């Protein structure tokens, strides 16, 4: 049955509240509108809610914008204040790791970290909060210099992104960040466990705060004549898109009216295209490429089933977004989002036949589709970013009390 929401490691409902508004330096990566992954959305939603609670954010990013403005959030990036320069970014898309430490990318990463460490005009900072690996060294040095605690949120690990073939240089950055942080936030209990087991994170310091979604006005309008099975995500090996395609191959003979839509881009694209051809299902599979937030919402509104067959999925916010839109979801058992839902089908990531059967069952039985859609919507929206922001502030207060500023 469903894993209980609140565990020992999840912040208790009695959250800590600071005595005064905090100034947080957030060492980030992307920010909307130009983001490629969930991290940009996470930063945006979290910062928005933090400012509503009265806290002030200085958001650091290697990119020169544009930035969707949020009152209370100041953006800083190497090379000047907002809007002054329009330099071409030396950075490839997020999580891109196909480069060597001698390359321009690594020089740029180190440059970003140096800039973060030496950040000028940073006064009255209470907490330095860094996301994932790329800014950890700079963030740790900055926190040390400013004598304030470092909080690190881990959204995914190099082990997972590389499917067990990690890049040593990234691994080390992750390890250093986890060791330096006064508190570490993992986006699922599954991930927390990994941080403790593989990264030697101190269990007393690692907290779980789940991702959330914003309520969308657009409800899924299920049209029985236009049936879409949807995948949204990066076309990366860890996402298990080939399982999605192989399952589609099993479903299409019996459901000739169904369209399998893949929204996202990534390094696996050409391989997946070849697989589609090899499976002979080209006329029932559509690769949309990257979609905007609005396009994604429209897609969800017209979809019958959402599938997230990830081999590894620390959280899986795309599934939560589908649930919020009332679309029934099929997720792999290991995904973090599986910990907070009972209204989804949970399947072993390797079990193509089971994915295919679950897709077929949702296509075949409208009552099931409706019941799961309603349950998922309720589960996805009963708590949102405001709750997550309050949980995060509670971890800030913990980190301040720990007096662990390095």
């Amino acid at each position, binding site marked *: *049955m469903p894993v209980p929401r609140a565990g020992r490691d999840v912040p208790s409902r009695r959250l800590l509240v600071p005595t005064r508004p905090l100034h947080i330096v957030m060492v980030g990566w992307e920010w909307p509108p130009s983001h490629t992954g969930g991290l940009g959305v996470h930063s945006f939603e979290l910062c928005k809610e933090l400012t509503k609670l009265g806290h002030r954010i200085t958001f650091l990013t290697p990119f020169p914008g544009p930035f969707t403005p949020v009152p209370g959030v100041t953006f800083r990036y190497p090379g000047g204040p907002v809007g002054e320069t329009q330099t071409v970014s030396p950075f490839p898309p997020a999580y891109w790791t196909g480069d060597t430490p001698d390359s321009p990318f690594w020089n740029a990463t180190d440059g970003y970290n140096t800039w973060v460490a030496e950040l000028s005009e940073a006064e009255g900072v209470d907490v330095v909060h860094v996301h994932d690996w790329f800014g950890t060294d700079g963030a740790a040095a900055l926190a040390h210099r400013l004598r304030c605690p470092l909080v690190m949120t881990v959204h995914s690990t190099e082990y997972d992104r590389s499917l067990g073939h990690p890049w040593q240089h990234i691994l080390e950055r992750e390890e250093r960040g986890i060791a330096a942080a006064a508190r570490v936030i993992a986006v699922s209990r599954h991930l927390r466990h990994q941080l403790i087991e593989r990264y030697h994170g101190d269990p007393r310091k690692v907290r779980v705060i789940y991702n959330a979604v914003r309520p969308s006005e657009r409800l899924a309008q299920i049209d029985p004549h236009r049936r879409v099975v949807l995948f949204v995500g990066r076309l990366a090996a860890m996402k298990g898109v080939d399982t999605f395609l192989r399952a589609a191959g099993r479903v299409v003979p019996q459901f000739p009216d169904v369209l399998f839509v893949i929204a996202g881009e990534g390094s696996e694209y050409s391989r997946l295209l070849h697989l589609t051809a090899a499976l002979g299902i080209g006329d029932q599979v559509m690769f949309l490429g990257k979609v905007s937030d609005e396009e994604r919402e429209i897609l969800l509104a017209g979809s019958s089933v959402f599938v997230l067959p990830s081999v590894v999925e620390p959280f899986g916010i795309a599934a939560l977004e589908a649930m919020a839109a009332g679309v029934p979801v099929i997720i792999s058992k290991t995904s973090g989002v599986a910990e907070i839902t009972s*209204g989804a*089908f949970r399947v072993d990531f390797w079990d193509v036949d089971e994915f*295919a*059967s679950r897709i077929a*069952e949702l296509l*075949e039985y409208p009552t*099931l589709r409706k*019941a799961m859609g309603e349950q998922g919507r309720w589960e996805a929206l009963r708590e949102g970013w405001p709750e997550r922001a309050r949980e995060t502030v509670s971890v800030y207060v913990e980190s301040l009390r720990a007096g662990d500023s390095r």
Partner: protein
Amino acid sequence: MKIVLYLHMHQPWRLARFRYLDLGSGRSYFDLERNLTIFRGIAERCYRPALDRLAQALEEHSEFRFSLSITGTFLEQARLAAPDVLDRLRALHSTGRVALLAETYYHSLSFLVPAPELHDEVQMHREMLRKEFGATPKVLRMTELAYSDDLARFAERERFNGMLAEGWEGILRGGSPTARYCAAPAPTVMLLLRHYPLSDDVGFRFSSTGWNEFPLTAEKYAGWIASTPGELVGLFMDFETFGEHHAARTGILEFLSALPRAVRTHPGVDWATVDEAIQGPPREPLSVPYTMSWADQNRDLGAWLGNDLQRSAFEAAKKVGLAVRQANDPEILMDWRKLLTSDHFYYMYVSGHGADQGVHEYFSSYDSPYDAYANYMNALTDLRRRAHERLGVPILK
């Protein structure tokens, strides 16, 4: 005051994971090994020890007697998994102090399916009791203690002399649950009512450490029974109460053994089988115009047919039944009947909160109600195809 102790023995044929891709594969819907493994486990923890204690109590206390209902699906599984449990049951019945009740062979919702399904299943069960135990039941109990005026009329047509029902305030209208009643539309059918507070003290609360009466001793319980005014007190519960719902370490089996002895200390309190309890002076007529049950807070059929999933699955099963009847194939008919077993619908119960949800999850063998529904519908869809094939109806899709 007579105690009517009645214990219900049932195990469903649980489904295997029958995937949508398994349609047309000829695979069985039912997981024989898993069902037998479960049965063996319960036999070890509950059936054997509790039946042995009951046998001993019959031996030691000549006034002690009770009643059992044994479903056909239980018997089928016992035969394969633990034949000695059947031997124990036969030995108990041969004492003449253990009455057996009639019911549907498949513990099914066939009372909501067009005739003659209910009659057929009750008939099957009667034949099973005659063959296995040489028994001729006089009293009928419907699945999950379902009862209504219509069911009383059915019992009358089938020449039963009594039926069981829940002693629920909603139907008693101020009357006592321990008085004698007959069915208003069928006065020859006597009603035996479940005293739910006393039944649930044992069935649900016995091992609950948070209960202010914890721990419940046989002496205390016998005292409660003795101080209850009236003629009959119906203690109706699952047989699995003794060793399964409450594990042996809670002392439930000792409680069962000690009860006849404790009751003996109260003159005027005695035991009766259901067959004995329906004898006696004229009774008050009782009318129940809707179908009630013994489950959950509402005592209705909500536990089986309360949500869209359950209703949709049951409607689909009824519809498939038309083709199944026409197909006239014993195997197809048998599989359909196994799919009418009420447990399958119970697994599809959805509720976020409340005391009942815990009870439902305890009894479910699925990851979620959605899982239960999808699996059930796959089996039913396959069955429909088989029936259509047999009838020569072209299979669409």
